[in-house]
């Protein structure tokens, strides 16, 4: 009998304990959910930015980067990312650039956009980083064969741009440059991009009768105008980068080119000005706004989603003649580069 009573008491106790346990678990679950909600609200109030993206480009204060920087700025705004363009000197060596990149990573950069310094082995770039962060290259030709590079990059087809410039030149001379002398300016300093432009241009004009009088591929230092003026007189000066074009333009404006016509690739207001004033005959402008916008968008996507695979992007370029410089379709490019 006593056993029976004990059993009943134990069952009752068990039932009470079970009920209490369910109650305590319910309260704990509710408390957990409240804490979660508070955490979400707190996080939302803090409004955490997507991440900090550092941009390392050569001679960052140069006018040629205006459209690129504007593209970066717009993309940063659209994607809610924090973007910072590192102030750099005229030309960085690969070692200096690595130092700058790692310095930025040390300073909390979550991703970097890099214009590789001339001579930089981009394939080993990832391994030399202090910390594994997304890296996007800009300015270089993105794999002509369509391959996805590592690290990925955004840039124009430099080879095609060189070719396009040659085609414009040939068009102006009805496809024959017979008897014409050419002077080519390409401030390469080991830059792959400029080398590709040169390659494209030279291959396109080859066999059309032009005589290459001189080719300057060195960096223009002080007195560069004089040094250009000191070159042999040519009929056509071809400038394959913005620096060369502005140098040639300045030279032409000062009537130091002995009447040579200037054809070039550039992306600064100065380059546009020389086209506008008739110093340059034809200007090819790469779509730097797109380079900036796409590179940052891809990096931001990667920061937003770890497994996102950043893609290569080949941007376009525009061939502009003086008479169509202010056409509405070109005004957008002028808008970007005059920012």
């Amino acid at each position, binding site marked *: *009998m006593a056993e029976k009573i004990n059993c009943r008491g134990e069952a009752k106790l068990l039932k009470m304990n079970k009920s209490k346990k369910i109650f305590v678990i319910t309260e704990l679950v509710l408390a957990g959910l409240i804490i979660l909600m508070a955490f979400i609200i707190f996080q939302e109030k803090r409004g955490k930015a997507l991440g900090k993206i550092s941009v390392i480009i050569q001679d960052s204060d140069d006018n040629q980067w205006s459209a690129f920087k504007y593209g970066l700025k717009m993309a940063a705004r*659209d994607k809610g990312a924090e973007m910072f363009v590192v102030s750099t000197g005229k030309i960085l060596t690969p070692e200096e650039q690595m130092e700058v990149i790692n310095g930025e990573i040390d300073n909390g950069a979550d991703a970097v956009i890099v214009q590789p310094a001339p001579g930089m082995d981009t394939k080993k770039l990832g391994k030399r980083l202090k910390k594994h962060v997304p890296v996007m290259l800009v300015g270089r030709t993105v794999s002509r064969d369509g391959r996805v590079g590592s690290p990925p990059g955004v840039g124009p087809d430099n080879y095609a741009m060189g070719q396009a410039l040659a085609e414009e030149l040939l068009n102006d001379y009805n496809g024959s440059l017979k008897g014409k002398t050419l002077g080519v300016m390409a401030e390469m300093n080991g830059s792959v991009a400029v080398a590709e432009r040169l390659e494209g241009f030279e291959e396109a004009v080859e066999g059309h009768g032009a005589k290459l009088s001189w080719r300057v591929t060195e960096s223009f230092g002080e007195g560069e105008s004089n040094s250009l003026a000191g070159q042999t007189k040519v009929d056509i000066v071809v400038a394959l980068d913005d620096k060369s074009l502005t140098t040639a333009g300045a030279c032409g404006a000062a009537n130091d080119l002995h009447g040579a016509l200037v054809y070039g690739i550039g992306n600064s207001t100065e380059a546009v000005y020389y086209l506008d004033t008739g110093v340059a005959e034809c200007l090819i402008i790469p779509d730097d706004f797109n380079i900036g916008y796409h590179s940052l968008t891809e990096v931001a996507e990667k920061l937003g989603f770890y497994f996102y695979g950043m893609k290569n992007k080949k941007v376009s370029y525009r061939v502009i003649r003086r008479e169509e410089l202010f056409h509405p379709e070109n005004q957008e490019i*002028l*808008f970007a580069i005059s920012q």
Partner: protein
Amino acid sequence: MGEVKDKRWGYIRKLKPKEIQSTIMIAFSVISIFIMLFLGIVLYFRISALTRQETVQDTQKLMEQTRENLEDYLVSMRQISDAVYYNVIKENDLSGLGNKIQSGMNLIYEANRDNLRSIAIYNNYGSLMEAEPVALQKEDPDVTKQDWYQKAMAKVENMHFSTPHIQNLFDDATQRYYWVISLSRVVELNDHGTSVKGVLLVDMDYSSITRMMKQINAPNNGQYYYLCDNTGKIIYHMQQMQIGNGFFHENNQAVAKYKDGVHSETFEGESREVVVDTVSYTGWKLVGVIPDSTFTHGMFNIRYFIVMLILLMAMMLAVINRVVSERISSPILKLDDSVRGYEAGDKPEIYIGGPQEIRHLGCSIQRSYEQIDQLMREIVLEQNERRKSELDALQSQINPHFLYNALDSITWMIEGERNDDAVFMISELAKLFRISLSKGRTVISVKDELQHAQSYMNIQKIRYKNTFSVRFDVDESIDLYCTVKLILQPLLENAINYGVGSMEDCGEITVSGREENGNVILSVKDNGMGMPEEEVENLLTDHNRVPAHGSGVGLVNVNNRLQILFGKGYGLTVESELDEGTTVSICIPALAFTEENRKLLEKGYSFGGENKLSGRSEIAQDE
């Protein structure tokens, strides 16, 4: 189908709470959750609607202010144009000495240089007459092909505002390009006293408008503002370049046709509110776009806050529900516990407490249980009394019968002068009655019962002139066990009457006794004619049977007596085969014949069986 339904109902039934506290708690909780959810949803939608309304109103106010600023700016530009025209151009001749027009324009330009890029006057051939600031005109701008010039010439009476464009008139030594909005109008120029038509151009700095628009576009919450002309051409958009490059799309062409006010539209799958406000003088439209995501973004925190509030309330209500349900159910549970305790054999101490209703219920149950207990006791007593009187009645049926038989035999012996036999008969009769009386006891020892059977058989043998023989085969070990008196005698009587009574010399009755599995088995076997199986089956069950011979005290009576005293597990067993004979066995428990056991048995405490009075006392077994 039906099975599935039944199964489902089965699950639902299983889910039903079985305790009052759980029922109350679940009921309260379900009601609370529904109320909270309802309130939460209503609250959310109300706040959402208010926030939406407020956002649209704020946007309208901000746009109104910006529109006024833009209008002020445009009015000031018009005033500049008017001042140049009416105070400078109309008052002076282009060929005048000292160039008063230039100095007048210079004064106005200097006063407004923050907002102005240039002021220029062109004649009807598109030649530059005057310009401020003085700058080198480009080689061949050919203004007659420029939009602002053509518009001015097309409608001479109007002032024309262009959309933003790069100024393509002067050679800026800084090699920069400026974005301007041109205000152009046809003016009458005095050239050597002759009135000629010309165009006055005031180029406003686009950055002034950009600044105003950037200011209102600063908060990056998805909401944005843009400016377009009446054809939908964008004048300012914070994503102007993205639109140009196709990264972003704007519904500007459709919006240009909207009237002032708030419009709901769906653009590229997104619902949004569009607020349109037209800027005077220009027909430009200031457009505010509030995508649905902006409202959602604003409501994000509120949504979570409401959920948090609901959870907090749920947490508190869970505690309150538990306390309340405990308060309500506690007295009921206590009452239930005490009732269960009573059912399990506790004393009937029913819980009386809690609210008045429960107290009343407790009192009623307590009283009922007390009454039931009392009634039970009375029933037990009555039952015992009834059994005893029944037993007494059965025994009293036997006694006269015996007496009649015995006296009849003695009479018959005396008449036949068989005095010795009569003496023997009387002495056997005396033994028989001594045991029959047994001082009024019902329970006697097996030994006495056998003695009684022997005396009875001795009497019967004389009466039947020894036509049958009797053999007693009994283990002495059973002598001192308890038995009910006068149970063998009716069996022997039956054996004689229906078995061996009619046989000549070869009749034999065997009385045997032994202990078997804790029971005492006494049997009476005859070698008479036996009986069919059906008769055997009815022998112990048919109460209405009329006996053919004897006292009428049949096997049924003996069986009843045994079962009344020892329980249903005991009694008689009859085995019979035609022409072979019959064996009737008595089965009783092997209880030692002590005074204590005898008294207990006679009081009515049965040994096992259905009538057993449970657990009150055990019958002592002294072996």
